[in-house]
Structure formats: C-alpha cells, structure tokens
C-alpha cells in the first residue's frame, strides 16, 4: 500500500475556557490512504470537527495542538508536519492541496459576491491564470458539479440558489484547484434526503474522476456505509475504533460502536422489537473519567476500564480501544 496522504497520531487539542484548560482531543489517531475515503463518525462533542479544523490549521484562537502529529503528504511527495507548519505554509496548502466543504453552504459562501467570483478567487490565489481563463475554468467546474445552465448561474449570488445548488457550488469551490485531500464536514446534513443522494453521488463520481482522498465527517451511519472505504469512530475526543467499512459494520467490536449501530432504526425490523439505546450521555469535557471515557455508559465496564486505554491492533486492519473488545457474530 502506498504511503498515506494523512497520518494523524497521538493528537491532543486543548481549549482554554474561563481560566481552565479542557482537552477536546485525547490522543486521536487515524490514517487516510491515497484515493480512499475515511469516514470520521461520532456524535455531538466527539471531536470530529475539531480534528478537521486541526488538520486545516484553523483551530479557533483559544484552541491549540498540545501534542501529537498530523503528517500530510503533498502532491510532490513532500511531507508536511502540519502541527509545526508556519501560517504561510498552511496558506499555500489550504485551498490548493487541502480543501474543505462545510455543512452549511449559506454561511460559508460570501453573500456579497457572485459564485463565479468566489470560485475564481481561489484561482487568483493559487494559479497564474488570466481573467478569461479563470472564468473558463470556473464554468467548467460548475458544469462538472452538474449545475444546470451554468453559464448564467456563474453570475448568481448565493441567495439565488437552492440549498442543493449552494452545496454544489461549495464543492466546485473546493475542487477548483484540484486538491489532493478533501475534508467534507457533514456536507449533506442540512440537505433533504433526495438532494443528499444527489450530492453523495456527485462526490463519488468526482473522486473516481479526479482521484482525491476524502476525509468525510458525519454522524450518520447510513452515509458512512455509502461513502466510506475506512471508518474511524470517535467518542468523547478519542478514536475508539478504526477499520475497513465492511469489517466495521459486520464486526463492530467496541461497545460504543455496537451500541451506536443498534440505536439506528433500520428497514425491515421485526415489529414490536424495541431499539436498543445507550443509557446515559456523553460526559462533559471538563469531567472526563480517567481511563475509558465510555465506561460509565458501558455494560461491560469493570475495574480494569479505569486504567489507560489505547487503540490496539485487534484484527487485520482493525484497531480498537477497549479491554473487552470482542468480535460479534454479526454486526446487527
């Protein structure tokens, strides 16, 4: 297997809030291989979005990387240690090599500029094309993301487009410089399900045609099953399980992953059978238990779970952070 595009290890991110420090990411580790899609899945507060901001070098002012490493291998094969990169280095990477799309396209697009101007700005920053070639390239991008009547839409403002169209524009904006790594943070969460199907289909097609790697952040296990080659499950600021998608869905081994999969209503369930839910809730960041953060909600927890737990190799290409992990007979 080729060297990974992105290798995150032992990543710690700390936020200062009201004179105390809270640790949002505790030794996060995952690997994204070239041309593949890694889904980072977790519920609110699991740290999946903070992870993506750390990779982009866009942590808010009160947050900082306090340990670990984020290694990005660029198109020339050059490896950048993002945690140590200067702001100039990051600016050269962002947009050109690493691009990002967000959940809410309305608030990520500038309402005062046409979509053509906003996509063109990326080329202005990261290429030496003249104005006419930039416009041509922007138009090509809008057609690539299947915006109907692209030649007239190019001069539209964001508010003149529907939610689905705006997300297509965001994708065009992210892809215009042909990035190697696309970070998609809940890109379809705000969309209706029929529009979500369109956007997921588009992303799969673009990946096939352009060959970028995708870090796909989502809370939706259905979307994970559709998009991911590999999956990293996050809980309370740590990765608790990483495996290939087939392996993860068919042999979930961390009690949290298993609980999560059992909590989802799915088609064809026998009548009268109740959903299993996970009791309790995620502990607040400032009151994390020592040892396994999931232990207070876990039926299998015992004394050993109060000790430090880390991701360990569990099966081929399958890592779990649990003392009691076991292979289920079937996923669900």
């Amino acid at each position, binding site marked *: 297997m080729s060297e990974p595009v992105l290798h995150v290890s032992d990543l710690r991110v700390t936020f200062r809030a009201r004179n105390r420090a809270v640790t949002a990411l505790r030794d996060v580790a995952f690997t994204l291989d070239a041309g593949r899609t890694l889904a980072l899945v977790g*519920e*609110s507060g699991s740290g999946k979005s903070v992870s993506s901001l750390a990779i982009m070098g866009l942590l808010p002012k009160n947050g900082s990387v306090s340990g670990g490493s984020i290694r990005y291998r660029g198109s020339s094969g050059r490896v950048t240690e993002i945690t140590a990169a200067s702001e100039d280095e990051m600016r050269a990477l962002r947009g050109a090599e690493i691009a990002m799309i967000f959940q809410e396209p309305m608030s990520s697009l500038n309402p005062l500029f046409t979509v053509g101007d906003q996509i063109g700005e990326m080329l202005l920053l990261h290429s030496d094309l003249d104005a006419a070639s930039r416009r041509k390239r922007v138009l090509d991008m809008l057609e690539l993301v299947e915006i*109907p009547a692209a030649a007239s839409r190019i001069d539209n403002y964001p508010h003149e487009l*529907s*939610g*689905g*169209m705006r997300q297509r524009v965001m994708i065009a904006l992210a892809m215009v410089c042909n990035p190697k790594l696309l970070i998609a943070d809940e890109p379809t969460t705000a969309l*209706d*399900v*029929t*529009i*979500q*199907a*369109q956007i*997921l*289909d588009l992303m799969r097609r673009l990946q096939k045609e352009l060959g970028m790697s995708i870090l796909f952040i989502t*809370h*939706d*296990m*259905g*979307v*994970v*099953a*559709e998009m*991911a080659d590999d999956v990293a499950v996050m809980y309370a600021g740590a990765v608790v399980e990483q495996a290939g*998608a*087939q392996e993860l*869905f068919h042999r979930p081994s961390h009690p949290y992953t298993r*609980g*999560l*999969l059992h*909590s*989802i*209503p*799915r*088609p*064809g*369930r026998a*009548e009268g059978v*109740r*959903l*299993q*839910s*996970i*009791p309790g*809730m995620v502990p607040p960041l400032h009151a994390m238990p020592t040892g396994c953060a999931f232990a207070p909600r876990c039926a299998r927890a015992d004394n050993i779970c109060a000790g430090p737990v880390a991701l360990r190799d569990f099966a081929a290409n399958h890592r779990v952070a649990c003392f009691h992990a076991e292979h289920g007979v079937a*996923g*669900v």
Partner: protein
Amino acid sequence: MPNMGWPVSEPLLQIRGLSKRFETARGTVHAVNDVSFDIPRGSITGLVGESGSGKTTLGRALLRLTDPSEGQTIFDGQDLNTLSAAGLRNARKRMQIIFQDPVSSLNPRLRVGDIIAEGLRAHRIGTPRSRRETVVALLEEVGLQADHRNRFPHEFSGGQRQRIGIARALALEPDFIVADESVSALDVSIQAQVLNLLLDLRERRNLTMLFIAHDLSVVEYLCDQIVVMYLGRVVESGPSRPLYSNPAHPYTRALLSAVPVPDPQPLRSRTILKGDIPSPLAPPSGCVFRTRCPHAIDICAQEAPEPVSVGPARQCYCKRTEDLYVPA
C-alpha cells in the same frame, strides 16, 4: 375515506380538504393544499416529506395554532374550525404539541416544574400542591427525577430537555399529541431513548400521535401508518409496513431509495431524483411532482390526481398508478 383497519369505528381525527395559504409580498404560498386523511385512535401516524412539503404547517393547522384557509379538522366528532373560543380552549386541553428544538421551546427563565405545570395553571386545574405532585409523577414517567423540577432548562442536555417538553405535553392528559421533528436534533443514541419513551407512553396512556419527521427510518420504526407529502399535497398514505415494503407513488419510491442504509452493500439500485423541489409560490399544474417524476406524461400536467386505492387503507395520488404499481 380510508379505514385504517383499527377496531374503533370513528377515527380520533378526520382531516377533510384542509388547505393553508400564506399571502406574501411575492405572491401566495400554497403551503398545504386540499389534504384529507384520518388518524385512528391509539395509532401513531407518521407525516413525512422534505423541506417545503407543508408537513409542519399542516401539524400547526390541525391544532389551530394557525388558522386553515379551507377545510375541516374533526376532532372526536367536533369541527375545530367552527368552535367558539371557549370550545377551542377546551379542545386544546386534549391536544398538545412537542417541538423540534428543546432549547427555544422551553422558557429559559422558568424552572422546569413551572414549565411543566404551566398548562395546569392556565386551565386552573388542581391546587399548587396537587400540581406539584403531578409534576413529580410526570418527571418520573419521562425518565427524569423529582428534584429536577427546581432546575432551569439550561442545566439539562438536549435529550433531557426533550423529555421535559414531553412531560409538559402530557400534563393535561391529552388524547392527541403532535410531535414535530421531536427527535431530529438529538444524537442517535439519545434519539433511541426518546423514541422508546414515546412508544411506552403510547401504550401506557393510549395516546394518539401525529409524528412529523423527515427521517424515514425513524418513522418506519415508530409509526403504524404513514402520510407522505410533497409540495403541500398528500401523494401517498397507508399502513406503514406495506407502504415501506412496496411504495406505490414514484415520489415515495424515490424518497425511500434515497435513504442511506447503515450497511455497506456494493450494489443497490436507486432512483436519484433530478432537480429541486419547485417553489410553493408557483407549484406546477396538475400533479405537483411531475416536474421531477421520471414517469410523467402529458396528462400529469392537466389535472391534480385523485386518490387511487392500492390496497387495504392505502391510497396513491398518481394518474399512472395502474401502469406503474405492481401489488406485492
């Protein structure tokens, strides 16, 4: 009208030709257009549709939180739209709503006990002491604790706040509850807790519920019958099981096939709809779905489809039902 197969003869709620239009600067929005269906006693009816389908407006119009432009809502034999103010006030005790957003729907300045007891006070039910006892019993029924009544909403998590909203809705011992996207804002592990609570309550209190949601998997899990809306109109309705296993309307089929299933399968045939939902300011003539329908023909533009029976208590609003639908 459909008989949903429940033993009780008269449905708790009968909706007949209900429409709601809003006048705006840019024209008339046809939010709900000529909607008719029944909600059987003791059932959970799922109302599904995407943004702009009119499902929330319909839920509000049923409770007369907004006045319908046309049509009837017959609740336990009474037409709500012709009731006097006093009559409506009485009927409202029996109908409650649980909202999507448990943050903005709970008054941040009131203690949880006062939030839950507000309906009792407004309807002058009980004494302060008996109301306190009711509040404690309700908190325990929804899985919270008696001493939570002295706290404020911000001290609770999203799932707990939704439980508070449910306790408030139950305080007046309603017969009918509208739950509008009541679990959409919750994480799945918490969502499962709240869904199971709703099922428990239905059993324990024999509640009738209208569950409005865009998440089709959740609706399938919870609901006995389903009403699918698109651009202000019902396109299909019927008992949950047959509707999910063999959807009749082209929109229902596309909608169900668009739902991502949490199981990685390499091959799954799916209909991906082209384009966006048209503006409710100018809905298409005839069948509102025809502009995105892969099966639309000339006749679909001419007149709105009448309901066609596609099985026991099942209706499909499509001109081409006979050509397209193969019964299971």
